[in-house]
């Protein structure tokens, strides 16, 4: 009379063997035993792989050339803003004066700077903002993606409040929300000042292909109709957002593909940044012109800014950044340093384990003698 704890399979319909083993918890299993000959090589291998990888990543990051110009405190060039001979008001003060009318009044700065190192093709221009929390919860929420997909919106969407509709006329802002409302509206222009490189000219910049393709194709579409706010136009019944100086269908009147909600600067801005200090792609240097065919040469340059965007009220900074790219994107040394550090740590741990293994190595042979009657040592 045998005691058999498992089910008798001969009298029942045959369960598949796997199912049988699964139910009886007798599936064949590999039991991981952490022996020295698996642990030590693993740690040393990781150490030996990560350190050169980190060095390579550092080299990639170093190959990116980046150049920044902070123009927050730049001075106006207009005589209207002159306070003394040769002294001009700062644009950031000019635009915050109550008499300044955004849209009609302007403040223009010119900043001379020198690029020390040649930037090889392709060169891109970014604008950078500091202390601007695009990742704040209320801010991120405050947008209407359906509106910007081109659907006709009858009611002001609640997420956009208080930037949903004009309080007096009840016309919906197009586009609504705080994100769109705070669209970056400085205009940056770049000029070469060293006539030896060529006559003083504007660096040709391209404004297309700066937004994500998926954004442009899927997320942002103009409503059907002519791009105006006439009764049969795409934006009928809407009004420009509160802080804008011109309505959305005038964002780029030269290129209808870049107008309305499909304006790439708007699309780039609508992709809210991850950190309070961020950079967004503004323009691409056009390398088809002969002077800039391969690079942006080092030398003196001049940045001209139509200063509109007010950042001083929250202590923000504005920058123009010129940068190349690499296999890993922009310039950031952290990955390289991290890999080198972790590689060294792993190597060190491998050494520690080697020492432990040598000191405690006889343990496994001792275990063969263990049985029921070995006294507890604990």
């Amino acid at each position, binding site marked *: 009379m*045998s*005691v058999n*704890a498992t089910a008798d399979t001969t009298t029942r319909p045959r369960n598949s063997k796997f199912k049988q083993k699964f139910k009886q918890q007798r*599936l*064949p*299993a*590999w*039991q991981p*035993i*952490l022996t020295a000959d698996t642990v030590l090589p693993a740690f040393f291998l990781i150490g030996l792989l*990560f350190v050169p990888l980190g060095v390579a*990543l550092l080299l990639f990051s170093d190959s990116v050339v980046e150049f920044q110009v902070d123009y927050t405190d730049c001075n106006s060039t207009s005589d209207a803003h002159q306070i003394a001979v040769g002294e001009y008001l700062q644009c950031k003060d000019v635009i915050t004066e109550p008499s300044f009318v955004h849209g009609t009044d302007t403040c223009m700065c010119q900043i001379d700077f020198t690029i020390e190192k040649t930037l090889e093709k392709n060169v*891109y221009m*970014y604008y950078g903002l500091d202390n601007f929390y695009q*990742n704040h*919860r209320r801010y*991120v*929420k405050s*947008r209407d*993606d359906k509106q910007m*997909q081109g659907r006709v919106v009858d009611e002001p969407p609640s*997420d956009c409040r208080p930037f949903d509709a004009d309080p007096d006329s009840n016309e919906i802002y197009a586009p609504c929300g705080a994100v769109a409302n705070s669209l970056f509206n400085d205009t940056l222009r770049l000029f070469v000042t060293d006539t030896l490189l060529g006559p003083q000219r504007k660096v040709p910049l391209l404004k297309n292909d700066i937004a*994500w393709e998926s954004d442009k194709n*899927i*997320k942002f579409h103009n409503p059907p109709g002519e791009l105006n706010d006439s009764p049969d136009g795409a934006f009928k019944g809407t009004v420009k957002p509160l802080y804008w100086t011109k309505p959305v269908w005038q964002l780029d009147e030269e290129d209808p593909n870049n107008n309305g909600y499909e304006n790439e600067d708007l699309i780039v801005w609508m*992709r*809210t*940044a*991850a*950190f*309070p200090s961020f*950079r*967004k792609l503004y323009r691409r240097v056009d390398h088809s012109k002969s002077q800039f065919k391969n690079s942006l040469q080092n030398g003196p340059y001049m940045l001209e800014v139509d200063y509109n965007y007010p950042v001083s009220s929250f202590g923000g900074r504005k920058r123009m950044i010129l*940068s190349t*790219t*690499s*296999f*890993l*994107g*922009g*310039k*950031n040394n*952290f*990955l390289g340093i*991290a*890999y080198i550090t*972790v590689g060294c*740590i*792993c190597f060190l741990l491998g050494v520690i384990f080697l020492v432990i293994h040598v000191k*405690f190595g006889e343990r*496994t042979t001792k*275990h*063969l*003698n*263990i*049985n*029921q*009657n070995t*006294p507890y040592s*604990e």
Partner: protein
Amino acid sequence: AAKNSKTVSGTDNSSKFDACMVVTSKAMSCVTEGNLEEEFVELSVKCKSVIACRMQPNQKAAIVRMIRNSKRVTCLGIGDGANDEPMIREADIGVGIFGVEGTAAVRASDYAIAQFSFLRRLLFVHGSLSYRRITDLISYIFYKNALLSLTVMWFGFASGFSGQPLQLEWAVQLYNVAFTSVPILVYALLDRQLRLTSLEEYTHLYRTRLGGELFNYRRFSLWIVDAFTQSILITFIPWFAYSNLTGAGDDDPQSYGHWSMGLVIYTAVIFSTNLRIALVFRSWTIIHQFVIWGSIIVFFIAIAILSASTVFAAAGGDYTGLFVRLLGTSRFWLTLMITVVLALLMDVFFTILQQWISPSWFDIYREKDYIQRKHRKIGPTPEVELLGSKKNRLWVDGIPSAQPTPLKRRQPSMVVRPPVLARSQTGYGYSGTGGNAQLHWNVAQSKTHLA
């Protein structure tokens, strides 16, 4: 540790009288009426075994109640008849036997077994396994949810502590449903620290489980500390890898955004939690492999679906176009690799250290089994005798010792007992040779049976 030696009876075997106490129903009623419960309990724990016979059902329950109240121990009551029902219900763990006397006991019990001898498997195999599995189930679920929440908390440093979530709502809801739920389920169902046959053999290992060896404040807080430190690493390494960056892709100048950052961190969380439970696995079946890698693959599939259109957008967040945009860049994979390696490095280090320097008894026996199976050798112990078994089973003679001796297994080839100790109809079937059968639990039986 000393606390591991807390046995059910509360005292060490060596301090017991070499005696067996027999209590009849009449004596029992004297005890209860005369308020002698304390003395009775004190005396009975000092005896090697106690046999109570011809008990009324309520007296059986009274015995269990007495022991529980005096000694504050966990009591197990086992029986097969309707008269055992009060006792089974009174005990902390009631085990009912499907008997010839009907299923009254079974209905009142927590666990029902078919034969008395199955109690051994119930305790030493299933009990031991379940303890470990449930402990880790509870701890792991707290760990993985803490980890996810803490990453969002740390990112608050960047978002002005406005409570901005890092991930799309859909992606977060699927976390506990699809991305991290199945491995721990498989662990709780299938993972075994030792082969089941070994668990039955080495019954003395069960003693190490008593007294909260696995589920105590210290071990639970270590899981939470683990979640805490991992969350710091998982948040800040991608943060620093992506901060002040112009383009994030392979020769791609275009700007990335908040949701890209969140997805990098989220992917690191998924990898870390799934690989963390893989560190706890002690038996890798095909199902284990499948669920670990399967969960990660399901995650990527889900992200691909969420990125395909704007249908899943909510509260300003959406992943449209993110899948290709992020997963196609080397920066993403490199950041992911370094984050996961660093997050798990500490756990791996301490696991290896613990296994090498202070292995638990289960680890030692696991290695012993492994070595023996590998070399097909039996440990060179004089007490061990191989008895007519084709498989590599260890049989240990019942040698009196300070340790509780395992009781003999039945095999058809072996004559186990003299006829007087035949297994009775009640299923009370323990037998032994040389008087070494020992009872360690107070058991009430419906029929008299003298050893």
